[in-house]
């Protein structure tokens, strides 16, 4: 039989089996890495876009770098308007070009008295991006401290984090993510120089302490909600390094006070009665169970590198999502049936081949989407419907070319027609494909969901028309194609 000599037959079967294997996990209950995910607009849920403060990070980085230069090379420097200014009345030999480069700095201005340096754009962006990755983990541990939620947290751009939580939400998520949770311990200091006054916003208590913290929350290993005389408190413990520092600080300063400061406001300022060597402490002061619990969660997760601002917030109720899916599926099926009927009426047997082509195109599309673990959103569904349109267009172009060749008695009308039409299809689909790729690269949100299904759809459509449709055209005698009017 002629059909078995067609390589397209075997490739078609391979495509079919491959698609089946790839699509199958979507219908099984266990989680798998190659499944189509549903976007929040389909399954309902919450999405937050968080932005870390770039300016604050730049300042922190400047301070850190300036301190590092001082500690390592004994060269003092000032920070002025985003620049590190180093005066030339000291020995700058250690500050070679290589050192400057390694610090990510570049020279901004040189004068007789001083040099000023700024971070090179590249190194700052890299550092900013690393910080955001770090913050992603902190946000994850805060929102999902039990590790049982199906979250999606990803870095977007240089300093943004997209947090998506499907389904219902306990109310304190916003509370937990928006706190920086910078815990610092400061010793009391009465000089004006290098000191700062912190105020407790509730009690009005204030204390003047050393501005640079003696110990920071970075050393905290564990924190939990506990009760002290029936009042909720937050108990925390330091790691080894932190315990040593804490022991040193308390033993050297018995009798003086120290301040526990959270995000710039004073929580409490106890007097040190004896040296504390156990490396643990307690924060008390007007907590409710919930606020104490939240504080424990965020202390344990570590502090965020900078303040976080919620710049986009979306909440999609489950009704809308479900309605969307149902309607979307019904719309797609009706569109499919309408096109199918039309094609069969218009092109007879060829129209029937188109139907098979469309179905194969859809299964290949879903197979690729599963393989790539794509998130399907409602704009994505629209993209799929349009893919069907492009696939139909390819079929029409091919049929019309074959019909035309047949009419003009051109030799081998089927192959000739298919090939010349396919060149046109490639040209037109590739332009759309390239546009979609750029759209995906630069777009955000719904644009991405739409372009990803368009990209995958165009590729599937090109493959199935070349293999499956051509197979049917090859094995059918032109008399039966229904194209000779």
């Amino acid at each position, binding site marked *: 039989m002629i059909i078995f000599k067609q390589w397209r037959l075997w490739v078609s079967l391979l495509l079919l089996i491959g698609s089946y294997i790839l699509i199958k996990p979507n219908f099984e209950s266990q989680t798998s890495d190659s499944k189509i995910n549903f976007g929040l607009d389909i399954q309902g849920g919450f999405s937050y876009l968080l*932005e870390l403060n770039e300016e604050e990070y730049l300042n922190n980085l400047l301070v850190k770098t300036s301190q590092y230069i001082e500690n390592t090379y004994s060269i003092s420097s000032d920070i002025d308007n985003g620049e590190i200014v180093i005066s030339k009345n000291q020995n700058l030999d250690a500050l070679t070009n290589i050192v400057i480069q390694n610090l990510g700095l570049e020279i901004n201005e040189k004068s007789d008295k001083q040099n000023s340096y700024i971070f090179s754009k590249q190194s700052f962006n890299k550092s900013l991006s690393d910080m955001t990755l770090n913050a992603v983990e902190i946000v994850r541990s805060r929102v999902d401290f039990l590790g049982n939620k199906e979250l999606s947290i990803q870095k977007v751009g240089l300093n943004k984090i997209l947090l998506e939580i499907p389904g219902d939400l306990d109310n304190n998520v*916003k509370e937990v993510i928006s706190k920086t949770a910078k815990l610092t311990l400061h010793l009391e200091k009465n000089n004006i120089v290098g000191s700062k006054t912190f105020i407790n916003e509730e009690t009005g208590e204030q204390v003047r302490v050393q501005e640079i913290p003696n110990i920071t929350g970075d050393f905290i290993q564990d924190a939990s909600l506990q009760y002290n005389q029936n009042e909720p408190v937050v108990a925390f413990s330091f790691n080894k390094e932190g315990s040593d520092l804490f022991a040193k600080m308390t033993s050297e300063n018995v009798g003086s006070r120290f301040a526990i400061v959270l995000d710039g406001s004073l929580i409490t300022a106890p007097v040190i009665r004896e040296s504390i060597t156990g490396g643990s402490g307690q924060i008390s002061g007007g907590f409710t169970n919930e606020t104490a619990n939240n504080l424990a969660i965020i202390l344990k997760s570590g502090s965020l590198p900078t303040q976080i*601002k*919620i*710049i*986009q*917030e*979306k*909440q*999609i*109720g489950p*009704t*809308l999502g479900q309605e*969307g899916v149902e*309607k*979307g599926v019904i*719309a797609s099926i*009706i*569109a499919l049936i*309408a*096109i199918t009927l*039309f*094609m069969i009426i*218009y092109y007879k047997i060829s129209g029937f081949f188109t139907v098979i082509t469309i179905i194969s195109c859809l299964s290949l599309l879903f197979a690729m989407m599963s393989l790539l673990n794509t998130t399907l959103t*409602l*704009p994505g569904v*629209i993209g799929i*419907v*349009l893919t*069907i*349109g*492009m696939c*139909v*267009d390819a079929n*029409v*172009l091919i049929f*019309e070319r074959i019909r*035309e060749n047949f009419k003009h008695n051109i030799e081998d009308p089927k192959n000739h027609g298919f090939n010349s039409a396919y*060149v*046109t299809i490639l*040209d*037109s689909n*590739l*332009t*759309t494909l*390239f*546009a*979609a*790729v*750029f*759209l995906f*690269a*630069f*777009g*955000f949100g*719904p*644009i991405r969901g*739409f*372009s990803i299904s*368009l990209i995958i759809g165009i590729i599937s459509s090109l493959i199935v028309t070349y293999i499956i449709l051509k197979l049917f055209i090859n094995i059918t005698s032109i008399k039966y194609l229904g194209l000779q009017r």
Partner: protein
Amino acid sequence: MINFYSFKNKSYLVSLTLIILTITIIFFKGLNLGIDFKGGLNFEVKSNLTTNQLNEYFDFIDSDREVLIKREVGSDVFSIRIESGDNNPVFIEEIKNIIDQNPDIEILLSEYIEPTFSEELIKNSIYALASSLLVIAVYVWIRFDWQFAASGIFALLHDVFVAIGFMSLFNIEFNLTMIAALLLIAGYSINDTIVLFDRLRSLTSNEENKDNFETNVNNSIKLNLRRTILTSFTTILALLCLVFLAPVNLTEMPIVFIFGVLIGTFSSLFLVLGIVGDLNYEAVLKARDS
């Protein structure tokens, strides 16, 4: 047979009129920017109240925040847009709580965008649009001659621009999804155009009839006419299903796209090949032969 090429001057006139109309409409009506591009708060709510009742209900919001309430066509779903102002995070929580307590209003979707971020989204969308258009131009230029690239890009910008005018005229919200719709129109338009270009190129390279440019143009269109109509028809068929069945907050995209298909069909049938001819492509062809 219709002589499409002879219509070209009339078509230019039609197209010019459309462009002028679009400019006028956008100038006077402006674009109905959604919160993606303006920042602010947006609710989709289900309610059996009327628009007026809802307007009264939301009267408690400070007058310095503009409140826009619109019923989605043919449904009991309303879109409520509130301008951003001071201390947005607190405001959002407050208003959500207030609405939650009203048994007549069910929140289907709530969305907030910080104005600084929406500025970024505008920039982002312009990059996305510009880069995809550039890629299309480069591709057409590589595959065809520059006259084709110029004409194709003109048609595409023309279609997208007129579609923006359509959105302004009917007060359709301009948001990120619409950027995707506009790019789709661009894709559809260039798709249609390229199919014709391919034909014209193969006809003009045919020894027997390469000299008569006008006949070649007409033949390219004639030979593709059935395909153009069939494809537009099936695409519109699919889109109509989406218009009637898509979730309420997504019906506008297919409507805009249907308009785009119509205008794209017009520009590919009547505009593009005329422009190629007027860009002196005939002379180029002749020069190439001698």
